[in-house]
């Protein structure tokens, strides 16, 4: 059993398991957590999984976990690993099935009082416009040619086609498009799954929320971001849907077999990987980039429909995209190690990129402030807008991605009544538009860590700075 005594305390918010802990570790394993959050990790397999990540070929410096860490498969959720480019490992398990699951935040010019009388109607209209895609997708099925364009063009392609404002693509991580995408490496099965899924929400923890700005922590940056107290904002949390799931299925299968060819042995098959600079490694990366582009396009199309609903109910007031972040992805990024610039393959599985001020990859709009980081809370609880900080350089400019589960879905269904959750939220003045009480129970706030504590930890650890706290007005879970 792993316990606190196995860790070296680096500071109040950073702990390390040394490389000597297990003979197959190539680097130490680090976790950003308060003492309380660290102790919560011992209740599941997450630390063992973090140690397993430290065995990946080519891993640099340490495997890292964010304070919202919880048990996954292969990588823990909240896990980060950077491997040496070009011969370090690329692992589909370090990205997951939902490639580029992520979050975007749309901001309005209105305060909550100005839409109060229309809120219920707006939530209903958004729910009608954005289906979950469960059972059936959108009415229109795209052709393979259209899907190929989306896979290689991402959100940028949809904006060019008229499904958004010019600034929308600029305000996405990687400008809503990864250049390495090659549609040829995505199977027909994957493309077929995606044909009616552009603009669908999915299930599980995916959601749409109408929120208001509840608290501002940094007035100067909030002003630069266009945030003000009581402002109405809309959060969209979803990923690459069945198309991404199929890419992961296809390539994971391949890697499980070919990794033996490269002499790779790992403690968990789900970590299956190959050196990046092999035909299998590059093909996966090309396909993963397509999955990521599809997810950005999906969130862009949802934005298009949300804006339609907004215009119909509220009027011409604009909804601007603050930023869109990915939290299940692998990227090639340049980082500094021992004073030397190096290219790394950074896997973020349930973790968010957070570039600091002056980072060359940021658009001009955020060059001075640093990157906006969107952290969704669990259903009915607060969410946050943070900003990237230079200190997070040591974590490859990464922060947490949400609250992190603390109770299994099965236990949540058994012990929590979805009806009661909806009633409690209603008493707090929060509208819930959801077709299944079971789905509500699974995602109930009690099933998650306290997001305020998680964000407090990344703030105090210096990984990112708090800018604003958002609270929900209406939660929408798709039709």
């Amino acid at each position, binding site marked *: 059993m792993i316990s606190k005594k196995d860790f070296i305390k680096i500071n109040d918010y950073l702990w390390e398991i040394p490389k000597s802990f297990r003979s197959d570790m190539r680097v130490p394993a680090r976790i950003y957590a308060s003492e309380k959050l660290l102790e919560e990790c011992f209740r599941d397999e997450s630390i063992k999984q973090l140690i397993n990540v430290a065995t990946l070929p080519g891993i640099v410096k340490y495997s890292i976990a964010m304070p919202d860490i919880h048990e996954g498969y292969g990588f823990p959720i909240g896990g980060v690993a950077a491997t040496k480019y070009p011969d370090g490992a690329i692992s589909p398990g370090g990205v997951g099935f939902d490639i580029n699951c992520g979050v975007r935040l749309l901001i309005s010019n209105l305060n909550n009082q100005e839409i109060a009388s229309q809120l219920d109607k707006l939530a209903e209209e958004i729910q009608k416009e954005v289906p979950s895609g469960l059972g059936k997708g959108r009415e229109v099925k795209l052709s393979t040619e259209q899907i190929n364009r989306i896979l290689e063009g991402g959100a940028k392609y949809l904006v060019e086609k008229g499904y958004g404002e010019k600034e929308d693509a600029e305000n996405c991580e990687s400008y809503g498009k990864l250049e390495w995408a090659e549609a040829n490496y995505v199977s027909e099965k994957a493309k077929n799954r995606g044909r009616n899924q552009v603009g669908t929400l999915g299930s*599980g923890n995916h959601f749409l929320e109408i929120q208001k700005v509840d608290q501002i922590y940094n007035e100067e940056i909030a002003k630069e971001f266009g945030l003000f107290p009581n402002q109405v904002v809309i959060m969209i949390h979803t990923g690459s849907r*069945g198309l991404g*799931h199929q890419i*992961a299925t296809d390539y994971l299968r391949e890697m499980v077999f070919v990794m033996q060819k490269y002499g790779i042995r790992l403690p968990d098959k789900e970590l299956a990987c190959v050196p990046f600079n092999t035909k299998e490694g590059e093909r996966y990366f090309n396909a993963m980039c397509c999955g990521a582009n599809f997810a950005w396009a999906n969130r862009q199309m949802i934005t298009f429909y949300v804006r339609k609903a907004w215009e119909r109910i509220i009027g011409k007031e604009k909804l601007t995209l603050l930023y869109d972040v990915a939290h299940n992805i692998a990227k090639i990024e340049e980082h500094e190690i021992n004073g030397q610039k190096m290219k790394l393959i950074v896997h973020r599985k349930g973790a968010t990129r957070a570039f600091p001020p002056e980072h060359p990859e940021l658009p001009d709009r955020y060059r001075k402030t640093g990157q906006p980081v969107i952290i969704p809370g669990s259903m009915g609880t607060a969410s946050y807008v943070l900003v990237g900080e230079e200190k997070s350089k040591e974590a490859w400019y990464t922060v947490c991605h949400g609250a992190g589960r603390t109770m299994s*879905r099965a236990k949540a269904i058994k012990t929590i009544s979805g009806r009661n959750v909806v009633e409690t939220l209603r008493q707090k003045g929060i509208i819930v538009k959801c077709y299944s009480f079971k789905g509500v129970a699974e995602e109930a706030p009690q099933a998650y860590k306290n997001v305020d504590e998680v964000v407090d930890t990344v703030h105090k650890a210096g990984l990112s700075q708090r800018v604003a706290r958002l609270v929900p007005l209406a939660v929408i879970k798709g039709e």
Partner: protein
Amino acid sequence: MRKFFEILPHKADLKIKVFGASKKELFLNAMKAMFEAAGIKPEGKVVKRKIKIQSPDILQLLVDFLSEILYLSETENEAYFNIKFKKFSDNTLEGELFGKKIKEQGLIIKGVTYHNLEIRKKKEGYLATILFDV
């Protein structure tokens, strides 16, 4: 009647233990468990679909079989409740699926993982542990 599967504790995903008197029944029950755990309610007429899979070993055959079922289910909007096997070995499977259109679905299963995946021979038959990403 003994339940043919159990949901095991896991924080984020869906972990199940499935039982079957034979390997064929184990595969059938794993498919049924997947749909039951996803909260699927079927409706309408019975539909049939052919399925054919080849894999290097029995564990991969199970992953490939369930992944194919997920693919068919999503693209055809169907859930399957039976399979008539024409061929079945540790690395080949061929048969006909019987299903219905999906009326209601609680959860989307994103994929079948290899994490702690196992099939064990027991006195009374076979037991598999499978973790799905949900």
